[in-house]
């Protein structure tokens, strides 16, 4: 009998704060820094650091603009980010299915 394919959770998304950020952005076309702050409950420093990691990984696109002399930062998931998140969710479903003994795959 063939071995089931190993489950590999993307380490970029798998961290708790980044998972929350990607989950929020998956519900939006784009969202500002403050919107993500309010919905995730993360601190400003935490959000900045983890968003930077997601941007570096190419999953999130960051746009900064000056509006009324205020800096407005917008984030959106890239196509690669959406694909990676969809894959992560699929791997997670496999993981929990395996735990429940429903199916090895």
């Amino acid at each position: 009998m063939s071995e089931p394919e190993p489950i590999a959770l993307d380490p970029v998304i798998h961290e708790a704060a980044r998972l929350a950020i990607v989950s929020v952005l998956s519900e939006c076309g784009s969202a500002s820094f403050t919107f993500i702050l309010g919905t995730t409950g993360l601190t400003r420093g935490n959000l900045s650091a983890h968003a930077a990691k997601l941007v570096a990984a190419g999953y999130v696109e960051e746009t900064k603009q000056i509006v009324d002399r205020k800096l407005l930062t917008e984030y959106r998931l890239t196509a690669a980010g959406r694909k990676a998140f969809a894959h992560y969710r699929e791997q997670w479903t496999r993981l929990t299915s395996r735990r429940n003994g429903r199916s090895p795959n």
Partner: protein
Amino acid sequence: MLDATTPPDLPTPDQMRALNQAIDAAWNARRMREASRGILIGSIAMGLCVISTVLVVMHSQWAEGIAPFLACAILFVYFVGLFVSFRWLRRQRGANPVMVLDRQEEQIRAAAARPMRAIPILLISLLVQAAASIGWMYAFRHMSNEAILASLSVGPLLAAAFFVVRFVSFRFWEDLVFAGCIILAFIPMFFVRRTDVSFLSFVAMGLTVVATVSLQRRWTTWTQSLVDPEIETGIMEMHR
């Protein structure tokens, strides 16, 4: 069959906690995204109520002689209200550091940057609407009053169903009010020959305004709490 000697990859409590927090965050984002479009959603509901109200006014005995003017006045007030509210919304969005767009609005924003591509789509939709109008003009001449009323009822029923689905998806009581108002605004059409209950249409329009303001206030209160952390009611607003 799993090998009993191989330890299964179980999610750890921390992983499950992170997953639940991510699910909560996504739910909050979905709700607040919809609340940010309160005026837009309310305008759609109001537009449907206005259509029903105009139909009721045009068929009401008390409005005999003045029905066309009253219908025009209702439409005029609606479009002025639409213009003023959208201008306010645009100003609010420009001044507000808290911003969210859903994927359709992002696509519309991108399409607006390439207006030439929208022209064929606009032409096709105009042609479809013209064909539908001609089709209905022909059909109405050959349909009974009951059949016309039944066909007119389909629109409000579908619209009410849309808002009920929104209520189930986002848990805003305002969506149930919108659904109820759309039905309420159309109900006088069933009684127009027998008794005058046309006031129900105007009541429906008033209630729609109340629900729209309430929905938009959720967003305003929540965003104010993010800008000013001392306003704790915003957190409650998110979970209301």
